[in-house]
């Protein structure tokens, strides 16, 4: 469904991604693992073209999206949940959801604020509060909910468990499994295996901007050598 073919990305003059290739099949949950600074977020941003890949090809659902602007990529059904969450702090929760709203898309679940409040009950009672007045966990829920309002078929989740309390992490994992059941395809990034093994089918490990390992989660769990070499504990 998504394919990255030898992409190279830069921040200014700093070469971050080196011939990075990966692919995600429809209905899969794939984890992008790697230490802090490995290039996970840059990969996600390159897919959304928030960072323009200087070479290589990115295709989604059989289409070349390498040169499309971010809003067109989103319009094709790719949802992006940024690591920094980027809640609109001056907007209420309902208004945040409104910003993410797009017209229904064939072949993707259709979301409304009402349906999302069933998935994230904490948000409902605070619907008219400002985004800036929420806890970290609530902000993570909101940023996922906001992206779902775009009725995506494919979701990029950048470190969804980062900085969250264990019970919230559990809730995020539950949400991801629910989304998978609904047929969504997901690429998520993480620094370690704990969270990934709760939700993912397959994993890529990246280090210094290129893929070092790929395999199923079970294979990775049994491969202590690779884990010690590339992941934090």
């Amino acid at each position, binding site marked *: 469904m998504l394919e990255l073919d030898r992409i190279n990305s830069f921040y200014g003059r700093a070469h971050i991604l080196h011939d990075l290739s990966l692919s995600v099949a429809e209905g899969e949950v794939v984890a992008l693992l790697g230490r802090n600074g490995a290039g996970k977020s840059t990969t996600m941003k390159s897919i959304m073209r928030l960072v323009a890949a200087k070479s290589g090809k990115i295709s989604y659902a059989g289409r070349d999206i390498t040169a499309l602007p971010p809003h067109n990529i989103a319009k094709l059904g790719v949802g992006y949940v940024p690591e920094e969450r980027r809640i609109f702090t001056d907007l209420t929760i309902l208004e945040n959801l409104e910003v993410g709203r*797009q017209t229904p898309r064939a072949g993707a679940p259709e979301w409304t604020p009402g349906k999302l409040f069933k998935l994230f009950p904490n948000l409902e009672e605070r619907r008219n509060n400002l985004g800036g007045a929420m806890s970290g966990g609530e902000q993570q829920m909101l940023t996922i909910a906001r992206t779902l309002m775009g009725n995506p078929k494919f979701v990029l989740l950048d470190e969804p468990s980062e900085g969250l309390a264990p019970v919230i992490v559990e809730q995020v994992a539950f949400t991801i499994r629910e989304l998978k059941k609904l047929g969504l395809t997901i690429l998520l990034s993480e620094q370690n295996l704990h969270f990934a093994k709760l939700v993912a089918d397959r994993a890529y490990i990246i280090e210094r901007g290129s893929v070092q390992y790929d395999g199923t989660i079970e294979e990775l769990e049994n491969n202590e050598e690779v884990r010690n070499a590339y992941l934090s504990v």
Partner: protein
Amino acid sequence: MDFFVVQILTGLANAAALFLVASGLSIIFGVTRVVNFSHGSFYMLGAYIAYSLMTVLPGFIGFWASILLTGVAVGLIGLIVELGVLRPIYKSPELFQLVATFGVILVIQDLTLLIWGPDDLIGKRSPGFEGVVKIGDQLLPAYDLVLIFLSFLVLGGLWYLFNKTRAGILVRAATQDREMVGALGVNQSWLFSGVFFLGSALAGIGGAAQLPKGGADLLMDFNILAPVFVVVVIGGMGSIPGAFVAALIISELNVFGVQLLPQSTLVLMFVVMAVVLIFRPWGLFGRPEIVGSHGSQGPPEAPLRAFSGRLWLVLAACALALAVVPLFGGNFLQVLLADVIIACLFATSLHFILGLGGLVSFGHAATFGGGAYAAALMVQYAETPMELALLLAPLAAGLLALVIGWFCVRLSGVYFAMLTLAFAQVVWSIAFQWSEVTGGDDGILGIWPSAWASSTTAYYYLVLALGIGGITTLLFMAYTPFGYALRGSRDSALRSEAIGINVRLVQWSAFIFAGMMSGLSGALFVFAKGSIFPTELEIARSFDALIIVFLGGVQSLFGPLAGGVVFTLLQDWLSRFEYWRLCLGLMIIAIVILLPNGLVGVGHWVRGRFGRNADPLSDAEEEAA
């Protein structure tokens, strides 16, 4: 009591146009992060277009239909400016956008002159509201009540738009994080165009609505800019309630100020702004701008070339060439070259704070005109000899820069630009309004050099000596520890503080030093011309320096010299045509879009292509790509 009520209502009515223009400016800035300096021109166009529409559309309905149609028309003009001028340069540094909108000002000025002619137009009264209302024993024009109603209507309308409609919510979201809005599937181009339409339409309606009170004239564009910037600075950039409250404060202050101290209104405006800035540097409803948060920062700058002998050799050769000009060149050439040198000194002093310090001043004329007026006043009232005046004028300009700089260096980026412009307008209005001392519009005449320097050639040599001296001092300063500290403060205030540089003090000192040098150029100017008028303090004069720096290339130390030569000669040539502003404006816009590195940048590019002495940064970038 009735008196007070009427005064307050008058203030409210005066606030209407100010609020409309300022809120439009704020909305545009919020999303696009562009301070549209041509916003005053949209206001002016609003008045003219409404005037024409009202002559065709009669009666009560015609009047209001005209105002509405004017809004649409000016909105569309704003849209053209957005698509044609700004869209290609959204990713360029702030200065480019500011300079481009100045080009738009020039174009609109001449087009307005072309279409409506030079005479002031008097607006028709609003049908149905021609009379006055009696409040107790006081009279109030009925139309004032209409204006008050209109501003509340617009305030309410904007509130509804931004809180109850999807478009408004998207605009608010984009004001905070427009990249994220794009990643959520919203086409930002539409948002940009939308806010430009809306903001311009508001300015147009502002101009149209004040027509029955103030008419239409060709100075409206610049005249509204200073109060609008003051309003935006007081209210906080991007805040509509802020624009409303600040417009009210300023207008009430004017109304009551006129009663108490008729000539103090501008000073009062200034005092209020100063007080607000001391306690809330980001305005009443604003919030701090995070540096670089809107991503329009230019690429990192290449280190300054070493203190290379060759460049100084070139400079010395130029000076020598200039020194022998009188041997063969006539008076005309010497006068022209003196103008060039004065312009170069003026621009180099701006480049000192702008290029090295990253402080984009839009009010550099304040110290130029300040120095010129100081010299003229000294000669006029104290019979000061020219030599002493040339010495004291830079000090006076430095003093002025000390005061202005104290407020301005607290801010950065567009706030700094707006504030310097507002201060320069205050200085201008003092020269303009205080006619007992400054002669007002008639200026000060008969300021000639001392006998020994009174021949064209002698004065030319004087200008050459002092001009080159000033320029060399400014260039030299770039390589002193002070110059390094200044550049450090520009590149990273935080890191500079960390290594013990007092950023504000460095910037303030630079501002004062640049002010002194600009004052020197002003003093040289006044003795060259023999007279001084408030025009030398106008916004257009500040822009001259900006355009020169821009033409030469901001990143080049010698850019202002190249720019000064080209600009002065160009202006000398262009000003023979009737519509030279139009040509100049179009040229500026073209240069901004086509030559982002200025004239010196073209030189680098040529050398990079065809010679070995290429710019190290662009090489590295090409390697990276």
